[in-house]
């Protein structure tokens, strides 16, 4: 099974019944797989005229009751940013898969990168909080995509799955979970004494077509959904709430994997495709008696800062294999006092184990 296809099946496990997308390498296989499978389960798969329309159709469908997803890569992800901002502002649960490729611009269209970590966080204007997951295996492409749908519904927020061209096209063994092992978080729908946009930290949804006359707008709005763009207080209350609802649940959202951290003097921190050779290098280092540990992030945003801070206190150095020019290592630096070294590689070729190993050797 290929990573992209596994994302498509993950979506089905997550209850996806609406997909809209636009062809782009290396993400197109997700749309292709869903175009085969969704109609079989009563779902819809649309190819729109561009990525802006794709995310727009997804948001429209979600408000009309769907569990919706789109999938894209760098340039398409850039195009979607305005409507992703709309999804934040209107608290629309939806899933966006970004199969990262080497950029900026058309870059190396078919080759992997991890250059969208900061775009996932800050791609759209204004203050907002996002949830972004990072699978490192084909199996995780399935499980984390399914998870993304539940997180989207639980927090009423867009959720991004950041894979990359290598994981997306990688073929490896995968087992289909028993559907009963994946619990679906159902959408919480509101009743007449509640509001769609306030009254509680994560308000219930009021879908279109139920006669509740819901008013959804990307402009600043009151709890009722009614536009109010001049009140400092209305905007402040709204933005702080949608920011805080993710922030206060950071601990619940953290998904990490730790290896050999107990006695580690040097820690490696990595995610996604870069974590695969990292694991190889760490194993080799341990075989050779070097005291290294490994923290693999399966969530990028909200950033697992407590975990990182704790590791920062424990080790002398943190090494960060990353396929970008420091997007992950710079974020780590914000939370630790020890030295952070980026093992950076760009150009569409992932790290070799030996490259990472030689840096470990240098610092131990």
């Amino acid at each position: 099974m290929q990573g992209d296809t596994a994302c498509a099946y993950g979506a089905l496990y997550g209850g996806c019944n609406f997909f809209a997308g636009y062809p782009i390498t290396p993400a197109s296989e997700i749309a292709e797989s869903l175009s085969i499978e969704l109609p079989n389960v009563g779902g819809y798969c649309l190819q729109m005229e561009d990525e802006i329309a794709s995310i727009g159709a997804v948001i429209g469908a979600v408000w009309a009751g769907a569990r919706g997803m789109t999938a894209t890569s760098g340039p398409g992800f850039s195009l979607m940013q305005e409507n992703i901002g709309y999804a934040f502002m209107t608290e629309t649960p939806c899933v966006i898969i970004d199969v990262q490729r080497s950029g900026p611009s058309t870059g190396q269209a078919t080759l992997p990168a991890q250059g969208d970590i900061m775009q996932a966080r800050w791609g759209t204007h204004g203050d907002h909080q996002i949830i972004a997951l990072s699978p490192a295996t084909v199996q995780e492409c399935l499980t984390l995509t399914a998870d993304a749908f539940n997180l989207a519904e639980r927090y009423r927020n867009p959720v991004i799955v950041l894979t990359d061209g290598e994981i997306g096209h990688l073929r490896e063994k995968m087992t289909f979970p028993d559907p009963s092992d994946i619990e679906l978080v159902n959408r919480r729908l509101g009743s007449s004494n509640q509001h769609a946009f306030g009254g509680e930290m994560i308000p219930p949804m009021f879908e279109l077509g139920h006669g509740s006359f819901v008013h959804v707008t990307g402009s600043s709005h009151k709890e009722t959904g009614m536009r109010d763009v001049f009140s400092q207080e209305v905007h402040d209350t709204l933005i702080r709430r949608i920011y805080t609802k993710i922030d206060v649940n950071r601990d619940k959202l953290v998904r990490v994997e730790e290896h050999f951290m107990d006695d580690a003097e040097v820690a490696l921190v990595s995610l996604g495709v870069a974590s695969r050779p990292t694991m190889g290098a760490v194993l080799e280092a341990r075989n050779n008696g070097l005291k290294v540990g490994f923290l693999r992030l399966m969530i990028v945003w909200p950033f697992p800062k407590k975990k990182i801070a704790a590791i920062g206190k424990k080790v002398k150095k943190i090494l960060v294999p990353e396929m970008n020019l420091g997007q992950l290592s710079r974020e780590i630096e914000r939370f630790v006092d020890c030295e952070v070294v980026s093992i950076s590689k760009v150009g569409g070729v992932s790290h070799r184990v030996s490259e990472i190993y030689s840096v470990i050797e240098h610092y131990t």
Partner: protein
Amino acid sequence: MAANNNILNYIREEIFPTAFCPGCGCGTVLNCFVHMLDKVGIDKRDLILVTGIGCSSWIPSPYLEADTLHTTHGRPIAFATGVKVMKPDKYVVVIAGDGDLAGIGGNHLMHAARRNVGLKVFLVNNYIYGMTGGQVAPTTPTGVPTTTTPYGNPEPPMNIAEIVTAAGADYVARWTTYHVRKLMHSMEQAMKKKGFSLIEIMSQCPVSYGKRVKLKKGSDMLRYFRDNSVPIQKTGDLTEEELSGKIVIGKLVDRERTEFTATLNAIVEKREKEVGTS
């Protein structure tokens, strides 16, 4: 138009008065729309209104009491496509402006017409970007000075209704805010069509457009509409020269192609059956 208390049923009264400038055509479009809803007897629970950014996007949002999705600039048709797929039995109505639907969102307009998605699009064409203060629009006539074409618009305007007709819409008409009864009747026809329906409504923006063409009051522009509109049935008798600068009004097309969500659902039904039996 006779006063009719039933129309208040469709209005969020607490939000009135509207923010439209005095003499703006948006109020006329709103008025025609709610009178049509009342005449046809459409239950507001069956309406889903989708809109974008611009003065005319305020016609449905928030003045009308129905489910309303007020989207990003230029994208209401894309959002509405997702809505219609999930709610094929509802009236999914897009009311927005020329800058929104034909300018920044022109691609979605063309493709939704091609797909024949069963949306009802009431496109209010006021020849200008009104809300942002009078910049040139893709619909501004050649030569008209605007805030961004101070020496006169160097571009020819876009013929929205014809583009949408060529793209494949089931129903396309053009009216003006002067022709209120015809407009209402046309809206009624559009509501009853299954496929993509669009009415291009030529409307007055006295504040940002009228004053630039020496039609300062709303009524000046209405007179202009009255005197410069040519019913489509009569265009055959006129030369190209006689037609230049005229507004061709009436129904441009009324046909019955398969509606998009119907095709989509037929595929889903077939697949579900085949998978269910295999």
